């Protein structure tokens, strides 16, 4: 840990883990259905040998990825993501293997928006997207009231513009 850097404290919503898992499972089911269809076609029309091999390799990779994205990634993301904002800076911290700290001055923020997909709506969550002139940062999952509160808060802080040179 850094000794001098004041780490941001706020965490994501705990429900996010559940939702990410549901979302990943859905995507993976879809992916495996497509793979299944491809395998069936391969068998039925006896495609060239190498196509079968490629399908097998893709399946192995897909299985590994789904294990990662269902059983590991949501927990790591939830555990390691921290954010904070005050009247002068937005602070973000993320990453389990590669730990990243970001510091964005409020005066450089151009827009904040809350987004809500169908799954997020069901659980009353929002993601918060903060864009500057050159980049955009996302806080992936917050309870809706919290997200709206931060959105208004950041918008208020960001209204103060430094003299642009």
């Amino acid at each position, binding site marked *: 840990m*850094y*000794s*001098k*850097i004041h780490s941001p404290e706020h965490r994501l919503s705990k429900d996010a883990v559940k939702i990410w898992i549901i979302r990943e499972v859905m995507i993976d089911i879809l992916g495996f259905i497509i793979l299944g269809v491809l395998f069936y076609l391969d068998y039925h029309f006896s495609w060239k040998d190498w196509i079968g091999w490629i399908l097998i390799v893709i399946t192995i990779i897909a299985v590994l990825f789904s294990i990662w994205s269902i059983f590991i990634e949501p927990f790591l993301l939830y555990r390691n993501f921290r954010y904070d904002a005050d009247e*002068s*800076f937005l602070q973000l911290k993320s*990453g389990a*293997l*590669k*730990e*990243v*700290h*970001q*510091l*964005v*001055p409020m*005066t*450089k923020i151009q827009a904040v928006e809350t987004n809500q997909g169908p799954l997020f709506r069901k659980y009353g969550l929002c993601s918060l997207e903060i864009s*500057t*002139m*050159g*980049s955009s940062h996302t806080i992936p999952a917050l309870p809706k009231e919290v997200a709206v509160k931060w959105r208004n808060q950041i918008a208020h802080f960001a209204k*103060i*513009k*430094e*003299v*642009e*040179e």
Partner: protein
Amino acid sequence: MTESKQRYHPLLILFHLWRLLKNSIVFVIYLFVIKFGSDSTFIKYGRIIFFLLIGISIISIVVKWFSHKYKVDDTSFHLYKGLFAKSERTIPFSKIQNVNRRTTVIHRIFNVTSIKFETGMSDSDATVAFEAIPKKEADHLEEHITNTGVDEPSTNQAVSDPDMPPQDSKEAVVSNRRIHFKPTKKELIKASFTSFSFLVLIPIIISAYFKLTEIFHVGKKVEGLFLQITHSWWLLTIIVIVMLFASVIFGFAKTFLTYGKYEIASSEEQIFITKGIVEETTFTISKDKVQAIEMTQSLMKRLLGLVEVKLISAGGSNDGDEEMEINSLYPFLPIEQARKIISEILPSYEVTEEMTRLPGKSLWVRLFRPSWLWIFSTGLLFYFKPAVLGITQAWWILSIGLLLSIVVSRLLDFFHTSYTFNHHFIQFQTGGFTTSLFTSKRDKIMEVKISRNIVQRMLGLASIETVNRAKPVRHTALHDVPVQLGERFYTWYKKRENEIKIESKQ
């Protein structure tokens, strides 16, 4: 300035027609020259479609000229377009990052010029462009936006030159320019050596040699072998000498034409870079709009003690017109002179030579970091095992060669990498064979990032990164610095809140 809506210069129609002609010349040659006598239906319809498209384009060029208008008031440009659905676009002068002016030969014939006011916006209409405008008017516009775009017009006090009698402000802006650099003949010769432009013709010479021997082989078969060789040798030497001379002259001419009339000048608030003899381009930027300075050195330039200095601006044309990009101060500046010029034209920047190197442990991190380039290319080489120049074992020689050059580049990078930051400035130097020295001010940095991967965490190292406005957005990273430095960097950036000027309520 102009208070009513104005059309652009009528020459614009001519220019656009000329461009249309240039773009369609391939089709013209295909449809009417190569397939001259052809009666096939494909060609017949092709011609009809071609005429239709050309007709539509010509009409749209004329209509565009009629419907596109502009207005300049005291604070902004107003651009109008559209015949039925009208649109108006307002671009305040304060958003303009830099000005690009270009006078081609065609412009010169009509005594006009083209001028582009570039903003930092990211969409396609980000620039206010006048493709043809009388020189005088362009001067007026440029002067107008500099005098009104800047908050405090300090041009009046700037006229302190004793042998310049006080004149009206228009004259003052011009006479205020101070020239910092003009390349001498000697410097131009040096420049043409570093750019290697005279070597361009060497491959041509080599291929000509092979062609020639072939010709002589066929033509002189009757004569004796000895005679043939001497004969061709004679010719060959003469040809090689002539070609070498030609290529050297060609290289020099190219350098002289591009950099001959180079001029770096500055006034109280602006920097002007002019270049080109045949086609003149001028880049103008306000001093306070310079986002960062970058000094790059290739291997050759490092040996000769030359450097290329670039002023990084948030503006830029989106059309990717490389030739327009002359944000570079003269690319072959002697390093001492470069420092001097920077301190003269941008007194608010400091480029220091005292910088801190990386600790020894970061060398090991760098050396042992897997090189995907090497792994991938070795994999490919191993699979295909290509025979180069008849050597069947070439694949592992190539692989080892690549590995060695990667190691050398990493070693060089380690020795070149250094950093420093003090109250307002940050300076990174990175690069293996080609080095780059990046200097920016704290208030110009948009955001910062520190990261540590597993290895870095074990060794107490970190990577730091700054983000600057530029087109495209400029990320500058410094890897494997001590973690304490990472923290210092973070707290250093946090202190920017004390120094920024807050805009008064709009």
